[in-house]
């Protein structure tokens, strides 16, 4: 079974495949919702026929189902004839031309970095900022008053009681208090 791996662009343009007459045995992959979506479109976009072999540029799936250039003019046709012979007879330019017939982008061209990261980081910071505003508003308008145990006086009494109880006297809290001179070490 052939698994078709689609990118998002192809998935947005799925349409019913052409049924090649009564003798076609190909499965027709149709998505009826594409019709409803297209009715509100104001521009004409390409509809990909999903029942035909597809071309793709993918790093992880290197060999697509069909070549990049399908319809060959006479020059390409003669080159393809020459390809059927010994390849040592091909010149460097002819080999490159054959590659470009078969593939759209080379691997380095596919891997070429884009400026998308700036959009991503910028969008991130914008949403951080909006979230910060929301959190600030919330702290002012939503939160109830703090418990009385958070006050300065109560906290001081709490610390004194912890020292009196000798909390963690060996390596922790009370170990840092100088009991003789009544101050922190």
């Amino acid at each position, binding site marked *: 079974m052939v698994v078709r791996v689609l990118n998002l662009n192809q998935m947005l343009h799925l349409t019913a495949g052409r049924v090649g007459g009564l003798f076609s045995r190909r499965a027709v992959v149709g998505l009826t919702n594409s019709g409803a979506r297209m009715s509100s479109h104001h521009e004409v976009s390409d509809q990909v026929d999903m029942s035909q072999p597809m071309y793709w540029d993918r790093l992880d799936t290197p060999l697509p189902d069909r070549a990049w250039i399908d319809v060959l003019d006479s020059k390409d046709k003669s080159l393809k004839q020459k390809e059927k012979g010994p390849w040592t007879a091909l010149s460097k330019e002819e080999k490159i031309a054959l590659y470009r017939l078969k593939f759209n982008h080379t691997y380095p061209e596919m891997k070429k970095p884009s400026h998308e990261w700036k959009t991503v980081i910028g969008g991130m910071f914008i949403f951080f900022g909006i979230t910060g505003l929301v959190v600030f508003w919330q702290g002012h308008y939503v939160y109830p008053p703090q418990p009385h145990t958070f006050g300065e006086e109560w906290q001081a009494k709490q610390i004194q*009681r912890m020292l*009196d*109880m*000798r909390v963690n*006297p*060996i*390596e922790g809290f009370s170990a840092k208090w100088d*009991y003789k001179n009544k101050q922190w070490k």
Partner: protein
Amino acid sequence: MSLAKPAMRGLLGKRLRFHLPIAFALSLVAAAAFKYGVTEPRKQAYADFYKQYDTTKEFNNMRDAGVFESVRPTGE
């Protein structure tokens, strides 16, 4: 343009022969560092603390501070 044939076999073995000794060594180093950086000082700290510890004196200090429920501070 003829390139050398790349290595087709033994790739995992080569990786393991390189990385496993390093992994073992680093694990031993981590364990030794924790032992001599954390556990030995801690054992020493506890030993030193209890060498000088006067139980009765500390009890009376805590009692006078008022943290016990079973005994009140002296003089109440």
